[in-house]
């Protein structure tokens, strides 16, 4: 074997053996997606008489260490574990490999969901980021302030061995306690793109 070949092999072995999930790029950018006010879905079932939680805006910042995601609503929201009628419920769906063929299919948004953030908190200021392929979850810090919720997700929670870039497809589904169907979706159809080129 030629020296270059050996070096490549060593690099491959080290690369495989390392198993690291650090992002592969140094992209650092902000993103923002607006959601129309008053676009909530009428309830067909609402035994708890839950008021519709209207999502107005998704903003965030992605860097090498973390994804900071902020959801802003028309009205104040509280933690799910507080048990109130205005408790936040729903999911933020991430298609990290931008392929609808992997992960679990979400036809409403056309996503193959590889990770999702469960907006129901754990009672200790955290929310779960579920890795669908590995069937594991990690807990990310979540902060509730009046009508905004900010979640700080370490990048390692959103990367896999084969996919560590900064390109994501994303969608948000907001629900209500016992209320059917989901209250608000952003976007209503399709998905948002989080990618360096979208940086303002």
């Amino acid at each position, binding site marked *: 074997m030629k020296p270059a070949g050996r070096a490549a092999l060593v690099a491959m072995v080290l690369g495989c053996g390392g198993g690291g999930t650090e992002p592969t790029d140094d992209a650092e950018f902000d993103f923002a997606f607006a959601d129309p006010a008053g676009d909530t879905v009428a309830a067909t*079932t609402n*035994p708890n008489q839950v008021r519709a939680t209207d999502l107005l805006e998704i903003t965030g910042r992605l860097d090498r260490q973390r994804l900071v995601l902020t959801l802003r609503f028309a009205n104040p929201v509280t933690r799910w574990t507080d048990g109130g009628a205005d408790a936040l419920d729903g999911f933020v769906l991430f298609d990290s490999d931008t392929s609808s063929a992997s992960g679990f299919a979400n036809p409403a948004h056309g996503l193959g969901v590889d990770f*999702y953030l469960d907006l129901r908190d754990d009672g200790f200021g955290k929310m779960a980021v*579920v890795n669908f392929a590995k*069937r594991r979850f990690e807990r990310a810090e979540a902060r509730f302030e009046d009508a905004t919720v900010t979640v700080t997700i370490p990048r390692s929670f959103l990367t896999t061995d084969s996919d560590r870039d900064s390109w994501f497809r994303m969608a948000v589904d907001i629900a209500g306690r*016992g209320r059917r169907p989901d209250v608000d979706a952003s976007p209503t159809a399709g998905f948002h793109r989080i990618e360096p080129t979208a940086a303002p």
Partner: protein
Amino acid sequence: MKTAAALALAFGAVAWPAVAQRPDTTAVDSLAADATDISAVFLKTYEANRTRVPVMPRLGRRDLLPAMSRLVFDRDTMEWHNAETVSDLLSKVPGVFLWRGGWIGRPEPVNYQARGAASVEYSIDGVPFLPLGPDSVSVDPSLFPLSFLDRIEVERLPGVLRVAMFTRRHDRLPPRTRIGVASGDLDIARYIVSLERRSVGGFGLVVAAEHLAVPLRRDIPGSYSNTQAWLQASYLPPAKRFGASIQWIRGGPNRENILSTGTPVDTLSQGLDGTRNDLQASVFLRPGRHGLGLTGSLVAARSGWAEDSILLTLGDPTRHVRYVDQSLWLFGGRVGHRTAVSTLEAEVWHRTRWTPLDARVHLGLAPATLLAGSAEVGYQRHDGGRTNRWLTARGSIRLPLRLAASVAGRAGTFVPHPTLKAAAPVSLTDLGVLASFDHPRLALEGGLWRTAGFEPVTFPLYRTIDGIGPSGTTKWLTVSARVAPRQWFVLDGWYSNPIKDRPEGIPPTHGIVNATIQSKFLPTFRSGIFGLKLQGSMESWGDAVIGRDRDGEPITLKGATMFRAQLQIRLGDFIAFYDRANLQGTDLGYLPGLNIVRFASTFGVRWEFSN
């Protein structure tokens, strides 16, 4: 090589008989006497068995309560009833309806007088047993290891039951061993083993385990297994009144989801896969002679539930993560003083979650043989500034002609489920009046109860029952009776019915009747070692609204009659039993869609002996 092996074999064959033929030079009297003299061993054990050693006090037990305030299930009673679980025993309490998810291995939470998940408060050895895990508002008593317990006291209050469970106590020097094996339909298996030992110096040790597996066939969902363990070490010096103990009880239930067969598929009963650990350490001052005098105890306990959440999470059709890793510490102290006619007890608890302060004072009086009364004042402070404040009072009088009467009342503000942060205090005033006639051949008890309006929380394990509708003020009639026309034949049972109103979650006209034939065949087995028991049970109830679905629509429970039979043969402390449920093969169940396996049977043996 082959030659060497053959030589070795030949040498061995020659040498072994040579050794065996060597004259036995060991004198008979050089052997330890108890290694050969079986009679001596027997006599030694017999003598040792006559000596009692101190045992752990039953911490948290209410010493003095008026008549008809509590039902006691001791070890003999547990063996006598056809109980496979603690829930089975609780079904002997008039007014209890078990939300059975099916047969053995399924959930069996208790609904008492339509209070839903707030129906029962549990404790083990005086430490509150709090709901933890995915079902954090109620305890499923089918998960308690019945073989670890030797006494269960059920304190009846209007609207709530307090179930105090006490682990086994061994009061003899020879070690006590208990083993049990049971099997049954669908390859179920139960294994029980325990070893209890006390020393002259006061040290005690218990090691016990119980494993139940209900694997079920592939076409029947909801397989179950649970391995439970109990370790206890204690120190009770014989001549002293103080003592200390530490114990650990572990349960590891693994129960599959039970899904509906229709479309869309729904989760009828939520699975369970985790481990519960309850650790408690206590130091205590035992009562003096005849159980009188000053008593006290300090307790530190930790309860925790942990599970492989994600397996359940992704099995959850909603995909929501269930945060079920819960644990808390409990620190408590008790002090009490008992005289022949009175008892005064006070206890304070601090819990590191949900309820930082729990304080209660209990006074019991029995100034005369015919009269007794008790009162309890309690205060609990929960997270969020919520509080429980209550007063409980009881009184009883024994009348001529074997008659007795009692009254009980409970009033105050309660947060039924402090684990729910949005749960607000509610004001309740519940009352009960009981009258009884007690004769060895005939015992009757009638009760009238009035429970305040309540908004019960459902049992979350049953996912299709999203809620239970609120009830208004409800009056209840309960009747229980025991008729023994012959010493060997006993009819007993109870009946409970809400008067006029129909609260949700509990069926009307609910009753259980047991017919038991029991004999020791004394003319044949004069030592009394033999016992035969044949029992048939019938439980029935009327149509009811058991709860509400996610759309708020009522869920109907069809009235049903269930039959069960048990045969038990006893030889000393050896028991063989055969238990058969759903004898008539009905497709109905205690909850819609969760029927009892037809003609389901279990059989097995239990044996307890002194080593």
